[in-house]
Every structure is written in structure tokens, then in C-alpha cells.
């Protein structure tokens, strides 16, 4: 029978043909938990009677959600994680190494065709590699640590075909914001979102990660991106992973990206998406480029292209975090960090930072934030009295320079308008 990518991959993992709706118990190839989810997971693991992690090589702990620790309570939770890692021989990424999803991909802890379970809702990011990656909570993760398995319902799939060529200045973030707006915040609940098409084939791994990352904002269980044209970290091609012709989809959507405008999600939901033209002139107080969605090297490059030779608008602060120390070092070596810092950007530790509202840039009452992150729920960045707009790194950088939302393509050339 013709299979979706999700059906194909899960059939492979369980060793028999399965189809949407089946309940399966699947062996897990890799797992991960962060400082937001690991403390409860490790506690649950002990309560289950767990003594040894099923396979320490396959599990990673990442301290990224509140890093370095903003207070003694959180620091003590980090201590618990470090102790567990030492005792169990489990890999731990400590303060400043980077954001969990970047680290899993960058360091080869997840591969095409694998089944990965992460205790973080943006785990579907690894669908960019053609991995079936699901986000779970702490106790499910503890179950994986104990058994090396997880139960799943084989999801129905939504197929997104992206045709055409992205216009200059329009990125994967604009595509996925458009899709979240079109499908809605629950538009793919319990489902797999599968991406294909010529506009995907030409995308970098980093851009594919942006697409896969935000299926979480459609309620999806996972994302799967066809691997045609994919270059893995290190430059090798990826194994071919495609849906069968004639596979059954719950919904098929085709989008020609050639005419797409930059997209902005307006408060207070990621599916409140508008063409940038409808929100031009919205004043901003704070700008943030970071998160598992948009803080890889190509994102920092996009921001630097906009900001090189400019200064931040008076009264605007721009906070930047690189997805990992590796990304930061690359951006340091090629002058990107210098360009952004010269423009007035403030770099913070590689990690989740302001995206989750714990520390390192909580907005004030009545302030407006433009951010390259994935969620703008009320209170998301730590203050329910702030308003958050979501956009691409280029649009965020342009807003930081102009003090209001502007189309990066219409910014005057850097240096123009400067008073001598």
C-alpha cells in the first residue's frame, strides 16, 4: 500500500506495515531532555524504579532553558542534572553549549529515518533531517529512559508542497508563519506535517529546520521533510526519504512561494499572521533574534546584512543569541558578531533566553517586542502586559534599526541619511 513518510518510517521502525490510526510501541533511537523538563523526568524515572538508563549513549541532557542559572533554585536543578549525567554516564551539554535542538542535529545525535523522543515541544525540528521526532513531557521521557520505547498512534499526515522560488529577503520563517496562519494553531493536531516541493529541495538544512520547528504551532505530532537536495552537517547528502505516490493524506496544500511577502504574527497567537504590509509602522521597544527557530548562522547573516553599517534606532534594544557555541564561533570568525555588535546588538548566552520568559530580556509593561522566535502567547516572554510580534531575522533586524516594523527591502542603504 502507498505510504506517507510517517507511515513508511514507523513501519520500518516496528518491522511491519502500519497505517494511520494504529497504536504502536516503537524502539527509540535517541532521546533528550532539558533543564525545563529533565528534573521532573529524572524524578519520575526513579519513582518508576529506574536504576540504569536503557542506553546512555542514546540520551542527552541539555542545560539551555535557564542558562546560566538566574537563581539558586534553578542552579540546584542544574546540579541534579549534572549528578545524574555523571552517575549514569549520560552526555550533558552544560551552560553555553547551545540550544538542545541545534545540538542534537549539529552533533549527529539524530539521523534520517530514526525515531527520536525529546522532552520539548519543538523536537519535530529534526524532521528537517527526515527523522520522526516527537515532543513529549517529562513522564513520557522517563518511560523512554526506563524501557527504550514509546507508544504512539501512527498519525495521519498533511502534505505541504512548496513550489516556486523564494523572493529575495523572504525566508523559510516567512513560509512557515504563512502556513501556521493558514492552517491555524490546531490545524494539524495529532498529525504529521510532511513538506516537499522544489522550494524545499533548494533549502539548506537550517531553513528546513525552521519549517519543521514550527509545526508545533499547528499542534502537529511531528514534521517530515523530504530529503531531496539535503546536505547534512559536514556536507554529505542524506539518504532518500520520500512519500509513495498515491499515499493517502488528510489534507494536501500547495503554496507557490514566489509571490510570498515577509510575514508577521501579531499578538497574541502564532496563527495571527499578516503580510508585513498590514503592520508597517508598528513601533517596537525590544527586538530578539534567537531560539530554536531562528538563530543559526544563516539567520545571523540575514540580520547582519540588514544591520551592517547601521545603528539601532534610539530607545530600541536588540538581544541576540546564537543557536550554539559552534554557531557563535563561526559568526565570530566571519565578522558577523562584530557587525551586529557594532550596530548595538547585545549577545547573550547560547540558549533559550528571552523566548521562554525566564531571564535575559523580559519586556516591561506596555512594551512591544519583535522576535524571531516561535510563540507570542500572552506572557510568553515573561510579562503578560507586553505584546510580541513574530517575524524572520531580517524583519526583526530591520525593525531594530528603524524603531518600527519596516520591510527590510525598503530600508535606505546603510549610511544614507546619516548626518555628518
Amino acid at each position, binding site marked *: 500500500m502507498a505510504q506517507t513518510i510517517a507511515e513508511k518510517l514507523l513501519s520500518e521502525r516496528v518491522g511491519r506495515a502500519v497505517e494511520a490510526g494504529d*497504536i*504502536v*510501541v516503537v524502539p527509540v533511537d535517541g532521546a533528550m531532555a532539558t*533543564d*525545563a*523538563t529533565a*528534573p*521532573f523526568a529524572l*524524578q*519520575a524515572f526513579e*519513582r*518508576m*524504579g529506574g536504576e540504569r538508563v536503557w542506553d546512555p549513549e542514546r540520551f542527552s541532557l541539555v542545560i539551555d*532553558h*535557564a542558562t546560566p542559572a538566574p537563581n539558586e*533554585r*534553578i542552579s540546584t*536543578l542544574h546540579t541534579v542534572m549534572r549528578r545524574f549525567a555523571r552517575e549514569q554516564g549520560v552526555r550533558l551539554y552544560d551552560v553555553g553549549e547551545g540550544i538542545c535542538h541545534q545540538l542534537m542535529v549539529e552533533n549527529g545525535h539524530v539521523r534520517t529515518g530514526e525515531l527520536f523522543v525529546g*522532552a*520539548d*515541544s519543538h*523536537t519535530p525540528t529534526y524532521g528537517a533531517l527526515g527523522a520522526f521526532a516527537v*515532543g*513529549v*513531557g*517529562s*513522564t*513520557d521521557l*522517563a*518511560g523512554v529512559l*526506563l*524501557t527504550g*520505547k*514509546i*507508544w504512539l*498512534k501512527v498519525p495521519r499526515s498533511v502534505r505541504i508542497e512548496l513550489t516556486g522560488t523564494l523572493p529575495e529577503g523572504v525566508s523559510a520563517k516567512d513560509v512557515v508563519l504563512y502556513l501556521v496562519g493558514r492552517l491555524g*494553531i*490546531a490545524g494539524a*493536531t*495529532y498529525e504529521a506535517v510532511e513538506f516537499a516541493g522544489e522550494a524545499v529541495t533548494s533549502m539548506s538544512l537550517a531553513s528546513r529546520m525552521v519549517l519543521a520547528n514550527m509545526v508545533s504551532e499547528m*499542534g502537529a*505530532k511531528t514534521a517530515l521533510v523530504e530529503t531531496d537536495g539535503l546536505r547534512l552537517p559536514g556536507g554529505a547528502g542524506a539518504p532518500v526519504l520520500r512519500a509513495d505516490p498515491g499515499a493517502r493524506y488528510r489534507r494536501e496544500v500547495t503554496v507557490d512561494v514566489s509571490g510570498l511577502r515577509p510575514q508577521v504574527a501579531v499578538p497574541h*497567537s502564532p496563527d495571527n499572521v499578516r503580510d508585513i504590509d498590514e503592520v508597517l509602522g508598528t513601533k517596537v521597544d525590544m527586538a530578539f533574534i534567537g531560539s530554536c527557530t531562528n538563530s543559526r548562522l544563516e539567520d545571523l547573516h540575514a540580520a547582519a546584512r540588514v544591520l551592517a553599517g547601521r545603528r539601532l534606532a534610539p530607545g530600541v534594544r536588540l538581544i541576540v543569541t546564537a543557536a550554539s557555541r559552534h554557531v557563535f564561533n563561526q559568526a565570530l570568525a566571519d565578522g558577523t558578531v562584530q557587525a551586529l555588535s557594532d550596530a548595538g546588538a547585545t549577545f547573550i548566552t547560547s540558549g533559550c533566553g528571552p523566548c*521562554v*520568559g*525566564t531571564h535575559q530580556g*523580559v519586556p516591561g509593561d506596555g512594551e512591544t517586542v519583535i522576535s524571531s522566535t516561535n*510563540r507570542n*502567547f*500572552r*506572557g*510568553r516572554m*515573561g510579562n*503578560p502586559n507586553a505584546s510580541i510580534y513574530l517575524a524572520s531575522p531580517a524583519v526583526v533586524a530591520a525593525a531594530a534599526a528603524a524603531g518600527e516594523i519596516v520591510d527590510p527591502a525598503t530600508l535606505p542603504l546603510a549610511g544614507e541619511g546619516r548626518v555628518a
Partner: protein
Amino acid sequence: MTAVSGKAHRLGDNIDTDRIIAGKYTKTLDAGDLAAHLLEDYDPELKERIRPGDVLVAGENFGCGSSREQAPIAIKTAGVSVVLARSFARIFFRNAINIGLAVAEVPEHEIPDGARVRVDLLEGTVVDEDAGQSYRATRMPAVMAEILEAGGLVPYLKEHGGYEASP
């Protein structure tokens, strides 16, 4: 645990986990701390009004957003016996079952705030006793029902040692 009744506290659609418990409060192992901030920005007085056994009744897509299990823990610790919604976000639904918080999807319900609600999880029935109106809950997969019946995934795995027995 399969039949409960309590007063309904009505919530809207798309209540995300940031609203249930803000990210800044989640980094703790103290469930009481979590309950103290339950739905704080949504309705600061709500947690004061919840009595043990009460029922949260929501609209569509309850619990969307992050994977934080702190959300159902806060709800359970505040004394809520069951969460009903027209639909749930998937991670929240799994998390709730896994920590032993009863949840039921009731697609057609029109239960108002303050109604006296009786829920029979085994039968899959929900009754608004004030209006004399009854609703059907969507059947959950057998493995989930077994985990919930065991009181959560910790006691379930302690007892079974794995998932093989159930699906």
C-alpha cells in the same frame, strides 16, 4: 477515580501552557509552587475559587504550546478532579494521563461556568446536572485508559515494566 463530580470552571479556547503556568514559574520540583500560579494571568482569582474535586471545562485546543508537564501538575495539585475540553493539544493530553490527571474530550459540550458536572470516565459520559444535559466523551486508546486507571505512567510502568502488555 473513574466517576467524579464537581463544579465547572469554564475556560475559553486555545488556553496555552504559558497561560496555565508561566515559564518563569516552571523550574521547580515543588508542585505546590506550581499550583500557586495556576492560570494566574488568565484569571488571578480562579485558583482561590477551585474546591477539591472541581472540574475545569474548556473549549478547543486546551493546553497548546510547550511540553511542560508542570501545566497538568499545577492543575492536579490545585485540586481539580478532571479537565473536560472540546479538544486538547496532544502533549498536554498525554502529560495529563501520565501524571494521573483525568482528562476527557467532549466535542459537543455546552457546559456553562458554575454548572454541577458529573463525569464517568469508564462509561465515557458527562452530565451537566443543572441543565439535565448529557454528553459523550471521545474514547481514548486502550493504552491511555490503562495508564490513567493505574494512576499514571509511573505506577503503570512500575507494575507492567513496559508497554508490551497493553496496545
